[in-house]
């Protein structure tokens, strides 16, 4: 009965066009749609106006590969592995136009679009220097009842959102168990939504876990199966972040060997990427999740 929205990863090059504004899900080292990022690079997409809430290797890799035409963000960081070198370099040199949002403003702007209002008010970043730089995004507004001054943030409508889920069915009903971060708000705000997922499942599996469905199928245009599709970032509870690949990335990206690093990604399929980079490490990344501990409270 359900519509079949299943597409191969290779279709991404057609689903996203040069110049599109694209919201990328995930946050920190969690759950970025990295298979999609790699595929956009393989497809040679350019001038992508990327939007991230807390970006990391996803934004840095695209900056390094020349995929980006503009970057909207509230944070981009490689955390323990340092400042994101490609993004940093591209901004410092003036090569990459950017918009720095405040984090709540960015999410509430996405929310506004998703719920059909041209703006939303909130107790904003009072005293921050950011709003004055972007009068087309931030304004001051007053409550019509109390007169309280609030920040208004304008609705943000990306052309496309790409988010990575645990599983989805052919209708596009998508589930997350661990970190979903900004994914749902990005999807609700975007003109078109592409869901990559660890696994495409029958509708029965979705129904049996209905409480994990955070994005109903009516939002979704395409569903793409991409196992380890967040690698080297994490997808809990399937696999931890691959800190070793991230160290390799951080070591390569600022050096002369980076064109080889990038060339390899460009020249292989996603299946070949998994074969090459994971080579047995997939089991370790799974066991890192199992090994993670909570502390039983001795004093209870």
């Amino acid at each position: 009965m359900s519509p079949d929205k299943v597409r191969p990863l290779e279709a991404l090059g057609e689903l996203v066009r040069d110049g599109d504004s694209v919201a990328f899900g995930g946050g920190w080292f969690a759950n970025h749609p990295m298979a999609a990022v790699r595929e956009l690079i393989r497809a040679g997409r350019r001038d992508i106006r990327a939007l991230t809430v807390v970006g990391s290797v996803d934004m840095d890799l695209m900056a390094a590969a020349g995929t980006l035409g503009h970057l909207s963000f509230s944070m981009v960081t490689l955390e323990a592995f340092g400042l994101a070198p490609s993004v940093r370099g591209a901004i410092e040199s003036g090569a990459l136009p950017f918009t720095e949002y405040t984090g709540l403003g960015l999410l509430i702007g996405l929310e506004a679009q998703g719920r059909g209002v041209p703006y939303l008010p909130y107790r904003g970043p009072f005293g921050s220097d950011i709003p004055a730089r972007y009068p087309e995004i931030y304004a001051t507004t007053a409550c019509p009842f109390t007169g309280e001054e609030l920040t208004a943030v304008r609705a943000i409508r990306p052309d496309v959102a790409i988010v990575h889920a645990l599983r989805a069915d052919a209708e596009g009903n998508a589930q997350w168990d661990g970190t979903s971060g900004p994914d749902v708000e990005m999807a609700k705000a975007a003109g078109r939504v592409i869901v990559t997922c660890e696994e495409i499942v029958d509708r029965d599996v979705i129904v049996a876990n209905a409480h994990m469905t955070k994005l109903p199928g009516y939002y979704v245009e395409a569903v793409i199966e991409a196992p380890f599709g967040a690698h080297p970032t994490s997808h809990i509870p399937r696999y931890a972040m691959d800190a070793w690949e991230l160290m390799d990335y951080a070591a390569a990206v600022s050096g002369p060997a980076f064109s080889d690093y990038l060339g390899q990604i460009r020249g292989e399929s996603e299946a070949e990427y998994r074969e090459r980079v994971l080579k047995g490490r997939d089991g370790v990344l799974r066991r890192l999740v199992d090994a993670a501990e909570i502390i039983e409270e001795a004093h209870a």
Partner: protein
Amino acid sequence: MTDYEIHELMTCRVAAEVDERGVTVMGSFTPLAYASYMLAKLTHARDAYLVGFDAVGMAPIQLSFTGAEASAYKGAACRWGMLTEINSIHLAGHGGVEAVSSAQFDGNGAINLSAIGPFETPKVRLPGGAGAAEVIKMYRKMIAYFGNHNPRTLVEKVGFVTGTRWKVGDRARQEAGLQPGPIIVVTNLAVLIKDEDDRPFRVESLHPGVDVATVVANTGFELDVPEHLPATAEPTAEQLELLRTKIDPFGTVKFDFVSGKDRLSYLRDVLDAEWNRATAS
């Protein structure tokens, strides 16, 4: 007295601010803040309600670079996403303690996580503030911590205000609809507090062995220096035991205190230990 390292003292001092009122949210994996919250929850603030990643109502977790996120979900009561957290905690006045660090921090309680130099073409493009711009004003207590107390970080005025406490004194905060509470700065030298808009930070305590002149000389903004200056409490044996054996056995907190050239090898060692633990069983 037990031997301890400075990051342990700082962790314990931040933990002392965590109480059982409101919700404490962890965003980025910032080991010192995480360790402080876990320590509080295992000792004096058992009922502290913790949120990390999208795990709401967390159990206390063991820290690791590769495992902290997975741990957060294992004992959590609820799952949310970023927007629900924002609207149900930060903006809803339920925020308890917010601990941040930043490239620059000034005497008004402003942070700079954006840019050193001109904003559009900066000398150093910093990571950005994520939610800090809005959040640090909304929480009952703002804690700023710095492993390297120096006048390039603690400056008279930040070059760019990513975010700020906005209102500081209890009365000004309450009039603005905000929870009353101070700004507390915990560094490798001292603890500073600001709880009035029109008074500078004052030195609350000096860490053992630090003299006040060193603190003043290393602070870019004006300080009130009370006549009587107590020593910052040292970690107890119980606290150190919890930190070293339960909360942070891999040493993730110390990583941020390791200097430039040794950082990568320290990180590699921590990650090796995490790998070995995962593959051992």
